[in-house]
């Protein structure tokens, strides 16, 4: 059938535009100690943060690229040609009226202010290196919830910030967490007081507008005892001719009995290297849940993790990856059981289209002395074309007895007969593909908040529309 030889055109029209740059603060091209000092000066970092950055830089230089297990494509990143800090040099605004016109138009085109009015408890919008807008609904703020950019968090809430910053993900965790530690800027700082349940999601939107740029946001979310919060992030960038780098670090801390749900819909342009470290710490009876959808980027390497440190803590990763021509989605999950009666669940679904490649890497670790821990891992791959590729690398180390682990994996293919059957009912080839793919992810998407499942289905449709010739 046609589906085996199709050319793929990706429709990313929604995010593929940019406005001329108007940056006042610019750290220049390339990375050196001078870059670090420039960023620390502009951001008026306290000394311990400046020190931290310098240690990050040193570690970044010391660590090799992980190409012995990861994609050689990483070598295409030229760290000397990237711009590490760009900002308009103003504080984030509390109302959209105050946001400069071009930037405001950008977020309006992406529909952010409208979503804020409709269903969000707070929004932060980052443009290149810094947040340009940050606001929380009054009622939510009055409950003591803090939702600001990382710079404001550091400045105005130093005691909470410093206590947890870098504790879940140390500088030397990997080369890219070290890079982020050196040049981090932007991202969210959230603190939810004990017992407060934030009803609507808080959302951050990350936008890259500049060429040859690297975005390094740093997010820290602390849910105090018995509190609950949902955080959603979205991202887009125009497609420039040169590769763009996005390398974030996200740390979540769920204290006793708290629940954090972190949702990502990643739709970077197909020239973005998306190398992100995400990890949550769950104390006794706490829950950390990652919902991670990767649609865009050239290469994504991201394995959201949960360290279940307290008894009865729970960790969950629900992951959907869609790899089209020229894309490699190298995603997965890590579950580190570090207390008795901890439970983790990983469900991963990947779709490879054209020459796209999806890789699942999973790590489940249950040490010998623990009792009554449970893990369930399911990873399913769907191949659309004969040229599509999928790989699975599950690593499950469970020592001791009295722990239960369950692992299921499947690879399936959309068959020509299936597409013909749907076409015979009147669906075009693209609609038929799109419906098959939606069917494949449906049971997972049903668990997402409604707004996000709608957005995700729409993105999948857009991808499939371009994917048949």
């Amino acid at each position, binding site marked *: *059938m*046609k589906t085996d030889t199709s050319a793929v055109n990706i429709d990313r029209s929604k995010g593929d535009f940019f406005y001329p740059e108007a940056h006042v603060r610019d750290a220049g091209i390339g990375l050196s100690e001078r870059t670090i000092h420039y960023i620390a000066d502009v951001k008026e970092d306290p000394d311990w943060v400046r020190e931290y950055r310098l240690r990050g830089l040193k570690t970044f230089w010391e660590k090799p690229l992980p190409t012995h297990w990861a994609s050689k494509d990483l070598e295409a990143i030229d760290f000397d040609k990237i711009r590490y800090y760009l900002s308009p040099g103003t504080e984030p605004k509390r109302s959209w009226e105050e946001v400069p016109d071009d930037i405001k138009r950008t977020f309006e085109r992406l529909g952010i202010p409208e979503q804020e009015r409709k269903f969000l408890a707070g929004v932060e919008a980052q443009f290149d290196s810094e947040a340009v807008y940050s606001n929380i609904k009054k009622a939510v703020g009055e409950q003591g919830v803090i939702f600001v950019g990382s710079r404001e968090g550091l400045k105005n809430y130093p005691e909470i910030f410093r206590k947890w910053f870098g504790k879940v993900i140390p500088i030397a965790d990997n080369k890219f967490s070290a890079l982020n530690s050196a040049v981090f800027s932007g991202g969210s700082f959230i603190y939810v007081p004990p017992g407060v349940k934030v009803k609507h999601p808080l959302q951050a939107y990350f936008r890259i507008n500049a060429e040859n740029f690297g975005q390094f946001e740093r997010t820290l979310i602390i849910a105090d005892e018995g509190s609950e919060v949902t955080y959603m992030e979205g991202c887009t960038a125009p497609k420039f001719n040169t590769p763009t780098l996005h390398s974030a670090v996200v740390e979540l801390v769920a204290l006793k009995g708290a629940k954090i749900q972190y949702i990502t819909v990643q739709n970077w342009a197909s020239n973005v290297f998306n190398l992100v470290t995400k990890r949550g710490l769950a104390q006794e009876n706490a829950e950390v849940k990652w919902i991670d959808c990767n649609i865009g980027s050239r290469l994504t390497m991201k394995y959201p993790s949960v360290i279940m440190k307290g008894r009865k803590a729970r960790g969950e990763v629900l992951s959907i990856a869609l790899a089209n021509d020229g894309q490699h989605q190298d995603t997965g999950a890590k579950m580190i059981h570090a207390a008795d009666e901890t439970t983790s669940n990983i469900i991963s679904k990947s779709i490879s289209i054209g020459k796209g490649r999806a890789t699942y890497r999973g790590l489940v670790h249950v040490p010998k002395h623990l009792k009554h821990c449970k893990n369930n891992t399911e990873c399913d791959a769907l191949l659309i074309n004969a040229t599509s590729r999928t790989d699975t690398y599950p690593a499950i180390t469970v020592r001791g007895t009295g722990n239960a682990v369950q692992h299921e994996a499947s690879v*399936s293919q959309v*068959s*020509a*007969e*299936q597409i*013909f*059957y*749907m*076409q*015979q*009912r*009147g*669906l*075009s*080839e693209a*609609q*038929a593909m799109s*419906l*098959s793919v*939606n*069917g*494949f*992810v*449906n*049971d997972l998407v049903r668990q997402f908040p409604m707004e996000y499942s709608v957005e995700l289905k729409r993105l999948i449709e857009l991808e499939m529309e371009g994917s048949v010739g």
Partner: protein
Amino acid sequence: MKELAVENLHVAVGDQEIVRGLGLRVPRGQVHALMGPNGSGKSTLAKVLAGHPDYRVTAGKVWIDGENLLELDPDERARRGLFMAFQYPSEIPGVTIANFLRAALQSRLPEGEELEATDYYAKLYEKMELLGMDRSFTSRSVNEGFSGGEKKRTEILQLAVLEPSYAVLDETDSGLDIDALKTVAHGVNSLRGPDLGILLITHYQRLLNYIVPDYVHVMVGGRIVRSGRKELALELEERGYDWAREGALESAYTR
């Protein structure tokens, strides 16, 4: 012309010619049964009409209401009013019957027009009632884990909801026990009417006891060797396909 018309059709798979000069007209409002032994080319004809890409039409024409069917993609044929009930329907994991049919109906609307959800469900439930199907059926994934009988009933439900002008039922009776056969036949009979032409492809006369055709055609060796009224099916049942084959030879001599 409100008919599905096949003229001198030749079809090959690879080097092998399977349909060899077949002619047939199915006007709206009539039921034509096409009978034949295994390997006679019946199912190939059905797939060619629907536009399956594995088959190559080497000669001949097919018209749907005067329009050249063979120039159209499979989905365009469907939207022009051609429906095929599959002998072996595909499974579509994760897609419910309700969502599938909704997407199929939506594909028939002009761009920008949205199917009205309440009207759609009203229609869906009405047709299910007509076919004696339970409503909970609609939330099951299309054909996934269905029994043979459930698959065939689902095909007929789709036929009922999509309301085509012409329906090709490819061995809809195969694999059904007598109760399931009766249910399916009842469904088809309830859809008969002046706006629908049906081509009923079957190996056995048995189905024709329940869906009584207006005309019967016997296909042997890639072409139609005998045509007649419904009594032909009974005669065929009595005398067998060898008799029909002799007919083919006779007609070849007398041509």
